[in-house]
């Protein structure tokens, strides 16, 4: 099947065109070796012909300044690449055409069959911009088609153009002569062409410029290219500047004739920016918008999350009642269904966050956020866009981490991913609620503030502080060859294209469900097995003694079940792990029961409450105040002291502020960074900090 690639600058409206051409027949993967999103889909052309359409990342040129641009170069400079296109549809914003053609001239010099789609023709019409299509087409010697991805105008003409392109292979005729190499370059080219059997001179030139960073070249090839390059005194940066200048010099005069514009006047965007990027108002407006986003994920998501939870509870109950009791029913309900529920329960938060973020992105506001916060975030090794991730992390780290895709600098993106889980998410609230009463009494200070409320705020601030300080640490540790710079176009404010918004939501949700979901389901089943199984003899004994005790104490049926559950989890493998790690966590003030809860709540922090309920034989009533009351009576068997002293409770609180107790987040980190390495590092770093923090607190207080 033929491959067609969409290429163009960022902000050229490529994704709208892509969505128009493929509809819902699209998939998302990563380009090999990097976490740059590769969108592709099926394209149905005239006569039943099918082709694969790939949306290349936005790029300004084949001289890469970002990972996105590097990917475009990797694909287009390597005919052996699996994504190497048979033809290219170049998308350019007709309202700003003179800044959009550099990459096109380079693509033409590579000899690709190509057509130019002038996007945003509807806006151009409104703004009184006229493009002389014939003149452009004559100059570039390729078909030129005005389209609108926003309105869907001329998409059928574009498809027809692609059909013709594939049939006739209208080449950029090998060497388009928009640009001719100078003497110095010519020398290297001759050598490279001989040595590597490259027929296209511009491709040879690109190899000479970029060989060090091209993943498809073998080390031996790189060395050979380096020799040729050194011999001829090839100066890449100067040559690159000269080449860029000559290309612009060539097409700019033609564009002046082909495009008629009204004189630049103050636009609506300028007026809006006067407020939205204003020195004083901008941060305030941003915080207000982010508060709305936070509120939305936090409060609105609660309803669908409750439906999902009760839905799964119902199914689980149904399965338990229908299937014969036994390991299979337990595996289905407590392992698989619990895992599936644990995956799907995040979907509302992900959907709502991406609804709002994509709208902000589509409108053009996100670029302004970068402008406003770049300086502050730089101090912490983060990016202006990291603010969005950090704030939404207050609801849930999972969508927050998924939102870092738009951070172009890899190091800044990685640091954002690493520190976002420190921000206290909504799953920590139940844990805080159970424990905070042991540390501070519920009373008013200064007449208005509730002491527990202040303590809550303290825990949140602690998380924020940990995130920022860790960011500085990672900034110092992580090596990066990328130079940090900021050159960001601020696109004019536009109404969102709803199709793009729905596509973004659909894509994020399905990536989470299918990719991170697999890992979550697996861990969930493992945790279920650990908590339900133990050495057979011990499990039996536990059940028997529990029933014995129950009979002696004359307990009712519910209490019997709770007692059996408590004794069984103690005898289970999770119980063994809890006891096994007890020596390690004793200095933190934790006993083996807390140890078990630490293990099980790795599934999700709020599981702590349910596990505690089970352990203290109140499994059938696991609301937070009941658990709190039960914990407040717990005593250490050997000394008779209370287990939950202020020292232990605060130590445990600190632990939950810092620790990476969330398998779903780890699964997402793996997916977003492409390596388990970063997920493990994050787990080790956060757990280490949690351990030290708790140790310090307990040893000082106890």
């Amino acid at each position, binding site marked *: 099947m033929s491959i067609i690639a969409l290429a163009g600058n960022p902000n050229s409206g490529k994704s709208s065109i892509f969505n128009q051409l493929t509809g819902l027949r699209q998939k998302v993967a990563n380009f090999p070796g990097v976490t740059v999103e590769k969108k592709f889909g099926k394209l149905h052309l005239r006569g039943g012909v099918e082709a694969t359409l790939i949306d290349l990342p936005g790029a300004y040129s084949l001289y890469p*300044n970002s990972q996105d641009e590097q990917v475009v170069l990797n694909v287009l400079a390597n005919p052996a690449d699996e994504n190497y296109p048979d033809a290219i549809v170049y998308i350019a914003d007709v309202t700003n055409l003179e800044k959009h053609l550099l990459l096109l001239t380079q693509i033409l010099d590579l000899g690709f069959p190509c057509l130019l789609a002038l996007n945003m023709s509807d806006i151009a019409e409104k703004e009184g911009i006229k493009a002389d299509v014939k003149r452009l087409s004559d100059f570039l010697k390729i078909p030129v088609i005005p389209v609108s991805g926003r309105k869907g105008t001329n998409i059928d003409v574009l498809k027809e153009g692609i059909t013709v392109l594939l049939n006739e292979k209208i080449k950029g005729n090998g060497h388009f002569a928009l640009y001719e190499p100078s003497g110095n370059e010519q020398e290297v080219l001759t050598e490279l062409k001989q040595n590597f059997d490259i027929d296209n001179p511009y491709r040879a030139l690109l190899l000479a410029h970029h060989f060090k960073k091209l993943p498809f070249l073998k080390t031996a090839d790189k060395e050979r290219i380096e020799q040729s390059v050194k011999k001829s005194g090839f100066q890449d940066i100067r040559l690159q500047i000269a080449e860029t200048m000559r290309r612009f010099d060539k097409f700019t005069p033609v564009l002046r004739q082909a495009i008629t514009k009204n004189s630049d006047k103050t636009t609506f965007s300028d007026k809006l920016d006067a407020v939205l990027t204003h020195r004083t108002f901008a941060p305030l407006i941003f915080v207000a918008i982010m508060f709305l986003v936070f509120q939305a994920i936090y409060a609105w998501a609660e309803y669908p999350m409750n439906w999902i939870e009760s839905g799964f509870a119902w199914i689980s109950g149904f399965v338990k009642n229908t299937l014969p009791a036994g390991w299979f029913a337990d595996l289905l309900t407590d392992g698989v269904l619990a895992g599936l529920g644990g995956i799907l329960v995040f979907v509302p938060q992900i959907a709502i966050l991406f609804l709002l973020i994509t709208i902000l992105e589509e409108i053009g506001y996100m*670029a302004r956020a970068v402008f406003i916060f770049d300086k502050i975030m730089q101090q912490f090794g983060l990016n202006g866009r990291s603010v969005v991730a950090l704030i939404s992390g207050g609801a849930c780290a999972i969508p927050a981490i998924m939102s870092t895709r738009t951070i172009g600098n890899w190091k800044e993106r990685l640091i954002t991913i690493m520190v976002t889980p420190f921000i206290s998410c909504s799953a920590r609230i139940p844990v805080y609620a159970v424990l905070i009463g042991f540390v501070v009494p519920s009373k008013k200070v200064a007449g208005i503030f509730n002491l527990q409320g202040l303590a809550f705020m303290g825990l949140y601030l602690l998380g924020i502080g940990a995130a920022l300080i860790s960011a500085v640490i990672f900034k110092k540790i992580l090596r990066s060859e990328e130079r940090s710079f900021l050159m960001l176009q*601020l696109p004019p404010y536009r109404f969102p294209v709803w199709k793009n918004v729905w596509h973004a939501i659909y894509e994020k949700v399905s990536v989470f469900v299918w990719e991170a979901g697999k890992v979550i389901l697996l861990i969930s089943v493992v945790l279920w097995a650990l908590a339900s199984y133990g050495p057979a003899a011990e499990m039996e004994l536990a059940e028997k003694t529990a029933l014995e005790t129950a009979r002696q104490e004359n307990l009712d049926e519910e209490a019997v079940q709770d007692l059996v559950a408590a004794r069984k989890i103690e005898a289970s493998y999770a119980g063994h792990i809890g006891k096994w790690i007890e020596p390690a966590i004793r200095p933190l003030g934790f006993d083996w029961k807390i140890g078990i809860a630490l293990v099980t709540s790795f599934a999700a922090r709020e599981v702590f409450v349910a596990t505690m309920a089970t352990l203290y034989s109140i499994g059938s009533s696991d609301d937070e105040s009941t658990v709190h009351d039960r914990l407040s009576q717990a005593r250490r068997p050997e000394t008779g002291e209370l287990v939950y002293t202020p020292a232990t409770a605060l130590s445990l609180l600190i632990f939950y502020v810092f620790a990476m107790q969330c398998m779903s987040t780890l699964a997402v980190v793996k997916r977003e960074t492409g390596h388990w390495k970063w997920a493990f590092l994050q787990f080790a770093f956060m757990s280490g900090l949690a351990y030290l923090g708790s140790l310090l607190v307990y040893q000082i207080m106890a």
Partner: protein
Amino acid sequence: MNTPISGLKKGHSGTISSFTDDHIASKLMTMGVLPGSSVQLIRIAPFKGGYYLKVDGMSMVVREKEASSIVLEVH
């Protein structure tokens, strides 16, 4: 008169005459910021952050480091 953008007053404009850093220049040029482009400094971000520029009618942001490497001929 020649001055880097970082020395420009808010609202003032000029034409790019040269760049003082080849690496920054090569990146800026791919975005169409070229010698001869007209540049207006619209505003500077809060906390002394980014420079909001209009280059031939295109709005864009650079940091102080980049702004100080773009030399303008001020009319």
